[in-house]
């Protein structure tokens, strides 16, 4: 196994981690500020991808598609926050899980009703397509590099937003004490809608970016949503830093596990059994990682309390 292959796989792990971070950041913000578990976060990812595919298909512009993805998912997020989820803030997690489970059913089948059962087309724009040559002779797709870049930029932006700006101070205050924020004279319900729309927009952005290299179809959000939950649980719910660390951990574990576990088993098993066993274990690896983290730190790596 060459070092180039290892480096390439690490890049792949980073890219998948960065994408997961976009999903997880929204989830963890929403949980941190509003105390809400949003299972329908994956549906917002799907909405982003569909909006991007529809608009990019109609206009031919990938950038317009991205704008549409951000707008549509933020709008959908704000709409479901204001109409449904707002009523669930004080409720226990069970109600939230159930209500957002119901929202998945509605949003997924609604999308299928609008767009039909066939997958949509969304492709990488020409100016980002094809591989580039990196130092050391690695050929790596430019688009995936762009995704890593965008994800890191968003992470930086989020950290700046939370630590430097007025709205960030309000968000942190919301995490710390709902009553205090009321006393500060901040309009809580507007703030909550904004935070939710921000989280939704991040999910929509992820959906659109990923939609260009995967398939845009109904149900695409659910596996990602489960992964995003794994990420924030590993990182500690409510912590943006935890989401970043958790996302990279999950991305790397998944990617490297997929490739290297079968090889590892190949050292002492016959090839077909090794690939089968190794792949089986790889598909369970992130859940094993999550269970292990929680057993050592029951509130995640950077979490404070459940």
């Amino acid at each position: 196994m060459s070092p180039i292959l290892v480096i390439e796989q690490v890049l792949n792990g980073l890219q998948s981690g960065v994408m997961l971070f976009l999903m997880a950041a929204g989830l963890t913000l929403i949980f941190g500020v509003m105390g809400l578990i949003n299972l329908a976060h994956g549906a917002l990812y799907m909405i982003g991808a569909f909006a991007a595919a529809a608009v990019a298909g109609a206009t031919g512009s990938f950038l317009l598609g991205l704008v549409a993805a951000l707008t549509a998912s933020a709008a959908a997020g704000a709409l479901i926050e204001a109409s449904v989820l707002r009523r669930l803030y004080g409720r226990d997690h069970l109600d939230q899980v159930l209500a957002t489970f119901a929202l998945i059913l509605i949003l997924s089948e609604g999308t299928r009703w609008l767009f039909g059962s066939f997958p949509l087309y969304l492709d990488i724009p020409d100016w980002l397509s094809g591989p580039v040559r990196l130092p050391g002779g690695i050929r790596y797709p430019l688009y995936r590099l762009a995704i890593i870049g965008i994800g890191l930029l968003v992470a930086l932006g989020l950290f700046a937003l939370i630590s430097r700006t007025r709205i960030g101070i309000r968000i942190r205050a919301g995490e710390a004490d709902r009553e205090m924020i009321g006393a500060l004279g901040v309009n809580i319900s507007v703030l909550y809608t904004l935070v939710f729309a921000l989280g939704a927009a991040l999910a929509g952005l992820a959906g659109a970016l990923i939609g260009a290299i995967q398939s845009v179809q109904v149900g695409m959000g659910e596996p990602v949503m489960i992964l995003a939950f794994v990420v924030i649980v590993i990182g500690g719910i409510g912590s943006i830093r935890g989401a970043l660390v958790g996302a990279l951990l999950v991305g790397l574990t998944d990617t490297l596990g997929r490739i290297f576990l079968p090889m590892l088993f190949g050292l002492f098993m016959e090839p077909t059994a090794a690939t089968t066993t190794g792949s089986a274990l790889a598909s369970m690896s992130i859940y094993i990682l999550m269970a292990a983290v929680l057993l050592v730190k029951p509130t995640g790596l950077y979490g404070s309390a459940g």
Partner: protein
Amino acid sequence: MKAKSLFLATAVASALALAAAPGARAEGIKVGMITTLSGGGASLGVDVRDGFMLAVKMSGRDDIEVVIEDDQRKPDIAVQLADKMIQSDRVDLLTGIIWSNLALAVVPAAVAQGKFYLSPNAGPSQLAGAGCDPLHFNVAWQNDDLPAAAGTYLAAEGFDNTLLLAPNYPAGHDMVNGFKRTFTGGINGEIFTKLGQKDYAAEIARIRASGADSVFFFLPGGMGISFLKQYADSGVDIPIFGPAFSFDQGILQAVGDAALGVRNTSQWNKDIDNPANKAFVEAFQAEYGRLPSLYASQGYDTANLMISAMEKADVSDTDAFRAALEEADFDSVRGKFSFAPNHFPIQDIYVREVIKEGDVFTNKIVGVAATDFVNAYVDQCKM
């Protein structure tokens, strides 16, 4: 929208018949169609349904009643729907299932209760070999057929270092084994991925580093779309091949340029030159406003096989109807079509290439991979 009206008419008809008198029908046939109409795999079920209903409509017969239900791609739901159709709707014949695991859940019980089952898609090896049954007919293929034909084709093309890629589940292993059965060249390696995986960056990196001269992959549905897009973007130029499932009319539009030029094996394509196929392609486009897919062709052939048997025998005469089905006396859109002793097709399998016609991505036949192909399990079937 046209599809909906046709579907609705049949549904209403069947509802009325149900209300009138269950089971009190003298002739004709009552068909139970269990297929996937919601969720991720719905496009395949929709195509099978549309193809089937188109043939029913074109036959002009009014003694065919079709009850259609959505299995949501869940085996337990499929089993319950089969129970319902057999016990409550009292159908004579079942059809429609897309997925092998659902077929394995439904077919054994259905045929044990004396119902015919005509498979428009799934053809798991269990039902072709030891689990074959006089009342079970497959009108599509045995799961291994297309990959085995691809194996023959790649060997003939002189490839000698092929990498295999499939999801880690039984159908994935079947496909890989089917390919290996006929492929005489060297195997570079096997990669099994998580079922439903959508990111193949890691696998593509491995392909790039493998030194293989060709890649054979089986990734149905969304998995295939994702793989093809990512592979095209990666700049890896090792040629890839696969069975038709990742190059179907329904998903090619979603793959776009990434699939152009890729060769795949299929027992059908819209440019097969025979009158039945021409009529089918035209009527399908007129009725539904889109090009027919492989799955639509299979649904269409399934219905025509059934209609051909109805013309010779009444479905209540099980032996006669079975004999009529075995004759396969209908004009298949594939051209030649007959049944092997295990009731799986004997047919030609073609090599297709993805092309662009105007704005539409589609396939064109570029060669024949195997002539009169017979599935590998025929000797294991004792009936």
